[in-house]
């Protein structure tokens, strides 16, 4: 096994071009576990830890450009204002030690349906995109086109994830995750939700309940329609219980979970409906407070 340790981003891209099967490693919280369990024997390991710009983020006020290796601990500490959904998801990742090392770039690289970041990224909006670089240049992959199969993403073999671009939240966001213990647990299923009052849309993200992370498209459309038709964005009136109920049912219907050692498919569907109802209610209550205090 070769161990590649580029000092610069350009060197990293050159190395990846030369060794397209090299497995990138940053925090190592996923890669090292799989190596230790002998799940993978990659031909080469590409260590990105010397490339400091991967651990930086910036914001122009509209979009956060989140370096691929910014650890979850810093997302919680520094970005819970602009990226509240992602920060809530980051809170649920592993233990403090894991949150000090793990990053969204790693989650995206592994593309596990159980990755905690994915539902929050999906909910944050269709404008979220992954910045993929290679010696051939760079491109932006919309988040909806990123996840292509179980633990597969749409990166080319010579590409590395440089950053994720996420719109700054324009409304309340929430994230819920089910685990059978109260910390340090892989998601049985998870749900991300965001209100986007600026364009009158809502965002959803389902984790661990389908081959890939996915959004609940019909649920989003239903809710967008109800909010627009009833003038609720403007009035801030309560959502009727039938709206909340219907939204939950549509989220549940969007999932295609399996029975596995972590939970049954039936439980996952049931829990998604509950989490969808609750996160919608929390977000809407927060939104109502915001527009009332603005009025």
């Amino acid at each position: 096994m070769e161990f590649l340790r580029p000092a610069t981003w350009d060197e990293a891209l050159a190395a990846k071009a030369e060794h397209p099967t090299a497995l990138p490693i940053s925090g190592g919280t996923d890669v090292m576990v799989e190596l230790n369990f002998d799940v993978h024997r990659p031909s080469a390991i590409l260590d990105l830890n010397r490339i400091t710009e991967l651990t930086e983020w910036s914001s122009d006020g509209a979009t956060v450009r989140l370096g691929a290796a910014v650890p979850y601990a810093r997302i919680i500490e520094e970005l819970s204002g602009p990226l509240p959904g992602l920060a809530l998801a980051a809170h649920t990742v592993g233990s403090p030690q894991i949150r000090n090392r793990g990053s969204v770039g790693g989650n995206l690289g592994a593309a596990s349906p159980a990755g905690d970041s994915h539902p929050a990224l999906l909910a944050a909006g269709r404008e979220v995109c992954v910045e993929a670089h290679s010696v051939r240049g760079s491109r932006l992959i919309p988040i909806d086109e990123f996840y292509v199969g179980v633990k597969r993403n749409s990166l080319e073999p010579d590409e590395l994830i440089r950053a994720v671009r996420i719109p700054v939240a324009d409304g309340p966001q929430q994230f819920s995750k089910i685990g059978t213990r109260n910390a340090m647990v892989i998601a049985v299923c998870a749900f991300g939700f965001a209100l986007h009052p600026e364009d009158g849309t809502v965002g959803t993200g389902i984790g661990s309940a389908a081959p890939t992370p996915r959004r609940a498209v019909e649920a989003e459309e239903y809710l967008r329609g109800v909010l627009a038709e009833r003038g609720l964005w403007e009035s801030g009136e309560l959502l009727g219980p039938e709206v909340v109920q219907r939204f939950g049912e549509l989220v549940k219907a969007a999932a295609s979970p399996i029975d596995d050692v972590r939970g049954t498919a039936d439980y996952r569907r049931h829990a998604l409906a509950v989490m969808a109802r609750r996160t919608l209610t929390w977000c809407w209550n927060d939104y109502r407070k915001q527009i009332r205090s603005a009025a």
Partner: protein
Amino acid sequence: MSTRTIAGQKNLQKINQAAKDGIGGSPLRPDGTLKVKGEFAYSSDLWHEDMLWGTALRSPHPRANILSVDVSEALKVPGVYAVLTHEDIPGEKYYGLEIADQPALAIDKVRYHGEAIALVAADHPETARRAVKKIKVEYEVLTPIVTEEQCLDPETHGYVHEPHEYKSHAYGNVCHEQKLVSGLGVTDEVRALADVVVSGEYEVGMQDQAFLGPESGLAVPAEDGGVDLYIATQWLHVDRQQMAPVLDLPLEKVRLTLAGVGGAFGGREDLSMQIHACLLALHTGKPVKIVYARDESFFGHVHRHPARMRYEHGATRDGKLVFADCRIVLDGGAYASASPAVVGNAASLGHGPYVIPNVRMHAIALYSNNPSCGAMRGFGAVQAAFGYESQMDKLAEALGMDPVELRQLNAVTQGDRMPTGQEIDAPAPVAELLQRVKDMPLPPPLDLEHLDVRTLPGALSNTSHGEGIVRGVGYSVGIKNVGFSEGFDDYSTARVRLEVIGGEPVAMVHTAMAEVGQGGVTVHAQIARTELGVEQVTIHPANTEVGSAGSTSASRQTYMTGGAVKLAAEAVRHELLERGRHRYGWTQTDLSLVGGKVVSASAGVLIPIVDLLGDDAIEQTREHHHRPTVPFDKETGQGFGHVQYTFCANRAVVDVDVELGLVKVVELTAVQDVGKALNPLSVVGQIQGGCTQALGLAVMEEIVVKDGKVRNASFTDYLIPTILDTPPIPVQILELPDPHAPYGLRGVGEAPTVSATPSIVAAIRQATGKALTRIPVRPEHLTDTL
């Protein structure tokens, strides 16, 4: 009698210590700081110049015939020194704790997923792993025998051990069986005496000991043809007893020294890599180290027996128990391990700490192609406690009685007889334990106005901001035996030496006791200080140069090896005082050793120990045997089978998210009679640890086995409680001395593991109204989504 309420460190500081760092004090453990700082050397840290690394090829199938094994490609891998199969075993090919039915390496067939077939020694662990993958095994895969129904119908489904190879004492796929009848037994006439009858079927999943230090050790071949093994185990001498015949060596040429043990909980009572490392070391003539990977560890040790139980209880209208009937089926897996003793415990303790005039019990352990099960903290008493305590709650509900009062009304006390006919001839304050646990203050109710999401079910997973949360409270009590039962003489040996070193009297305590984290080394030093009046005590490394200390299990080590240290220290003291009497003509009969001096209660200080001892050393070795017991009668289950009983009562307070089926244990209170707390801090630690392991079984811990295959051999998916799952555990200790035990003490470690699980399930039942007949309780059980 005295009691202590200990809720945390603050309270501990208020305890009046009789003698500093003697018994009754709480000196800190010598290994504590090292372990917390990550500096303690565990068995996996062992190193020897020129050592090789061993690893095993394990079966991917739970049941298969091995048609051929071809090691030729593995032997060609550069760096490989040896590849061994059962054909290379010099001596006996089978071993076992109670029944020698397990091949050291599989012979022509495999009986469980993960069974070792071949061994490799190489100069690097990765080389060894690669070589293992080059061993070619041809299997004829057979349908595994895994359910109770399949096991009990061998004519249709086959035998785990064919009749001609069967070595156990029962029949078919039954490894061991114990029946019990007392009073009139349970007949229709007896049933008719009861006003209310409740019955239920209960199931317990397969719990794992989940110790953190993987199985590991280092075998070093010796010039005399023997072998020295440095090993993390629970019982050095019984390891040696099983190893020597396989290695074809006399006992004295198999020398064991205890290496740093990273937890045990019963999982190290059986052999794991001991024989394998020694076979490789003797074959290659080089030191061989084996360290299991985490997944291999889940295959490398036995687990807690899963159980299916059927209970029936009858009572009078006013709540007096009339009869109890029970059938317990334990899945022992492929090999016997400790199954016979586990069955004995389940049968004799399986009706709980209650006075029941008419009893019937039938307990069996099955052979199956599931993972082998054996010793785990609570040992056969845990499964049953979930059954009988669930029944007590069910009966209380049927009678419209308070569940604690029903238990108190039927609780055993000193002088009562167990269903085995054995009289409880030491304090048995069961009703009082329940009263005390009930009287302890409840935690404040859930405050929906000032919620901290971290305290709710789901915690930072952010599943509830108060929605769906319902609180429940549950109670339970349990009974456990201390020491080995049914006629087993599990004696302990201790050697104590007193000499002057650097102008100070120093005691050296040498035993073969396995320190697995229980704090035995701390307690041994305390006993030596108290008996010999010295401050400095050295603990000799545990090894087979001294006699057996028995197993670090069955809550027995402080009782048994602590008792041996007491006897040996008393013998040293006696010899020292005799020397003084002889030399100085002391006539007083009130002599003792205090503060480094010989003291007479009437005449005051006579002489410093240093002066009396001079350049001599006094050394004494003593064996400590507990009072004899007898095996239970096979048909009636009658007999004086247990050494000592121990009791713990619990109250659990839980918050349940009833919509999502998520549970947060808010508080888990324990009251336990410990006879005498030799080290109160360690006693509280044992009780809190035991409660936490019980919490794990109640709500999360299970090895998931499907068609004989283990599906979660990792800490990613075998979940144990984190600190966020572990509530405050207020502990109240009673000290009612047992006249038969050294210092009146009672074994501590297991009782809370037996008793706490049912209290948590009872609390969840109260919150949800669900019947909950299986543990661990999963979110699916609470949301009807199984």
